[in-house]
């Protein structure tokens, strides 16, 4: 018993070391979303093209909801991935134009190309608050019933697409097909 007690400080040290080592590599910037497995918040807004939109007009299949802005440089980094997804028709993408100005948003889409089915205009950031957004870019995976299944904070590039979204979407689709 006493022998074992002698190793207690070593064990305590090791446990603490492992916890702190892990802590060094945790990304404290990536906050868990409160909306996982909850329906998308209700909205009654317009698109950047001045067309009224609400929850009814969202795709009736799994889709991506991408929070973007013309001021947002990382959005340009992930933009080619969204353009490719749009061209291949892999999954519909709905945009949320977050805390931007309508004209700047329109110019941005004109200049860079428009990968979105439509972009919800959220100049005040009020819809963003309901989504729990804290800065563009963020991308949500939403299922056919309009329930949020996953949130990715920051750039969704090809690597994130391959490693995170592709498997998650495949799983979601097989889950929905089984229903």
């Amino acid at each position, binding site marked *: 018993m006493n022998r074992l007690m002698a190793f207690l400080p070593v064990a305590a040290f090791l446990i603490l070391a492992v916890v702190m080592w892990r802590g060094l590599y945790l990304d404290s910037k990536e*906050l868990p979303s*409160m909306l996982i497995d909850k329906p998308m918040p209700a909205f009654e807004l317009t698109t950047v093209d001045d067309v009224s939109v609400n929850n009814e007009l969202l795709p009736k299949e799994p889709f991506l909801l991408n929070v973007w802005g013309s001021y947002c440089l990382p959005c340009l980094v992930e933009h080619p991935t969204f353009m490719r997804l749009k061209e291949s028709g892999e999954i519909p993408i709905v945009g949320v134009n977050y805390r931007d100005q309508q004209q700047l948003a329109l110019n941005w889409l004109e200049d860079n190309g428009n990968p979105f089915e439509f972009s919800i205009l959220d100049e005040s950031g009020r819809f963003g*608050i309901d*989504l729990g957004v804290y*800065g563009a870019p963020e991308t949500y995976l939403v299922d056919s019933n309009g329930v949020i299944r996953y949130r990715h904070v920051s750039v969704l590039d090809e690597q994130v697409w391959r490693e995170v979204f592709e498997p998650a979407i495949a799983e979601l689709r097989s889950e929905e097909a089984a229903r």
Partner: protein
Amino acid sequence: MSLLKQIAPRTILFLSLVAFIGMGLPDAYAQVDTFEFESAEQQKRFRKLSDEFRCPMCQNTSLSGSTGGVAEDLRREVHRMIVEGMSDEEIEQFMFDRYGDFIFYKPRLTSQTVLLWFGPLLFLLLGAIVLINIWRKAGKLNSVQVSDELDGDDRRRLENLLAESRAQQSATDQTEDKN
């Protein structure tokens, strides 16, 4: 000219004193918003709440101290909710539903935050247990009676050693005298 020389150091001293005192005031770094309230009490609640909520984007700043876009929006929401007559609890719930425990500088006591709240106490208790054990062991050592009487054999050995060293000492003294 000489008057200016006289005044200048005092002015500088005064200004740095003002700046120094200013550093201690929490409001010195608060963002300036032009919100209007119906009463001083509402304004006080606004100050208190925006100090207690954490900016989700900039992590280590309160809503009141942050220049981040989302913090600006959230301050506006807090103001709106106060003026609409919502209670502090309702406002906290609103924030929690969207941003989770992260938004609180003082997290709520739930099954997930128990360790956060009482972890330090746990470590204090552990430390106390270790300390008490050490004291008790030390106490036991002190209370053990150790006799300083030598037994017969040891006494004889000691006397022999003393006699030997005395003989050596007198021998060296004699040689020194001859020199």
